[in-house]
């Protein structure tokens, strides 16, 4: 009897924890589909009485009543910037990870240390000099300027993760392939790459999430619709004293959905990527 009593207590505690994790997000989603009047209603309306897409229409500029914020344009910028910087970061991360995992060279540990240290610089601290230099060389408010910065943010972590995965693969495998007549290049694509796939996938996801969600640097390096990303665009809704709650919630949903879908597709690799890449390295 005592056993089942304990089990229910544990289930209840887990339920509370899950509720705390889920409720804030659900509240945002519900507000996104809510009528604007309901937000201010007294007494509060918990579950929307009428689910509506008006808020999405409004922020996408499809309704007459409200001037739209160029969300579609921000979305496009975000996609271009995140995808480009992720693909490049993974490629460069594979090269770097392979170098760290498979070669001995002078200054290896020092190089690795500096790589990681470069990642720790707070975004806002880095933004000051980058802002000054970028505005002199004309990279402010360009996709390329932001992509370059995100590449530098993502490379250290991708190298760290991918390095950990390459190291788990026994060297003898690729050596055997080379004895059988493969070049080192062929051996990499036939042996090491397929085996480290899940690590590379998780590195890619982390790089994508970092770029997709970054705010501190983007908010200073972008100015107009030419390069503004979604997180920066979210600030468009906060006027001095008023906040467009439903609009912001709709935009929040637009920001979170792609990240959500992508993460669920590869979630299996994510945990493995974090733990094994880190511990065994």
């Amino acid at each position: 009897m005592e056993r089942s009593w304990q089990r229910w207590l544990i289930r209840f505690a887990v339920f509370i924890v899950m509720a705390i994790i889920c409720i804030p997000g659900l509240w945002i989603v519900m507000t996104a589909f809510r009528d604007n009047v309901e937000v201010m209603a007294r007494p509060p309306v918990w579950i929307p009485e009428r689910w509506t897409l008006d808020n999405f229409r409004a922020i996408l500029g499809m309704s007459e009543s409200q001037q739209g914020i160029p969300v579609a344009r921000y979305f496009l910028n975000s996609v271009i910037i995140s995808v480009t910087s992720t693909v490049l970061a993974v490629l460069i991360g594979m090269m770097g990870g392979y170098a760290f995992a498979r070669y001995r060279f002078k200054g290896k540990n020092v190089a690795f240390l500096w790589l990681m240290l470069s990642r720790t610089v707070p975004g806002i601290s880095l933004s000051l000099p980058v802002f000054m230099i970028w505005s002199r060389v004309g990279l402010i408010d360009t996709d390329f300027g932001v992509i370059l910065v995100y590449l530098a943010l993502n490379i250290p972590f991708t190298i760290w993760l991918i390095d950990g995965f390459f190291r788990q693969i026994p060297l003898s495998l690729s050596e055997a392939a080379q004895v059988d007549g493969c070049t080192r290049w062929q051996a990499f694509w036939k042996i090491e790459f397929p085996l480290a796939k899940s690590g590379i996938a998780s590195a890619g996801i982390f790089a994508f999430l970092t770029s997709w969600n970054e705010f501190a640097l983007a908010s200073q390096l972008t100015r107009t619709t030419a390069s503004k990303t979604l997180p920066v665009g979210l600030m468009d809704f906060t006027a001095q004293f008023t906040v467009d709650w439903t609009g912001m919630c709709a935009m929040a949903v637009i920001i979170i959905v792609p990240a959500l879908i992508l993460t669920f597709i590869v979630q299996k690799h994510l945990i493995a990527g974090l733990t094994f890449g880190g511990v065994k390295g």
Partner: protein
Amino acid sequence: MRFFRSRLSPPILLLMPAFVIIALVVAVPLLFSLYTSFTGYRLVKPDSLWQWVGLRNYQRLLSDVDFWWAFGRTLVFLTVALNLELVLGLCIALLIDKLTAGQRVIRTIMMFPMMFSPILVGFQFKYIFNDNVGLVNNAIQSLGWSDVTIPWLVNPVTANLAILMAEVWMSTPIFAILLLAGLMAMPRDPIEAAKVDGCNPWQVFRHITLPYLMPFVYIAMAIRSLDVARAYDMVKIMTNGGPAGRTELLWTLIARTGYQDARMGMANAMSYASILLSVYFTVYFFRKLAAARRTMGGVA
């Protein structure tokens, strides 16, 4: 081509792109900002970039009360947040480990906050703690506990607590997920043996489970320490340092000094303090991680 091949070894070539980009985006700008921190550079007066003032910015910083408040608050904030995240994450991981079913679903749910942009988390809690339309006040009033609208984000104490809560909400699941992975990978034999030898559950936890989990704790901390400054995003959208600078963290102060007051020289001096702080946290946890790996002898 042949010349390059003979001179540069493969690892150097492979690492070249990474280091070129990091040099361009991080190293060179940081050298530039180090220089700027010795000038009285103001954004509105481009000529002042060449106005060398020596250590004046740093001297002023040392006697700047606002700076020390922000610095102290940042330090306290990080210490409290990281410890809280670790303890809560450990509790959640232990709870979920005890579950007999549904672990996978729950682990998936816990990934939810990881995908959120920090600015989104900030917005979410700004909305929840809003005095007029927020979920918390709505709930309190509906339950009849109180009729007053509590201005959570206007009161300095509750505003700081709200920011702390946002931070903990966002990062605790990462700790829980990583520690749960550690618990699941843990061999059961030593625990059984200890139980046979008469250890109580606390002793088992203290002397077997916890030491085994330590590498996982340090991985979580190391990953987390790479990105401590993201609290900037949350504070920026939730209170923007207000009321009256009571939630100002080092990072928001840097942004305010640099961009709003346009005192770039001063802001760069401050940002060096923030960089040292971040480097300290990272080096500390990476060292712990390396030490833990060595004592585990590659078991974990």
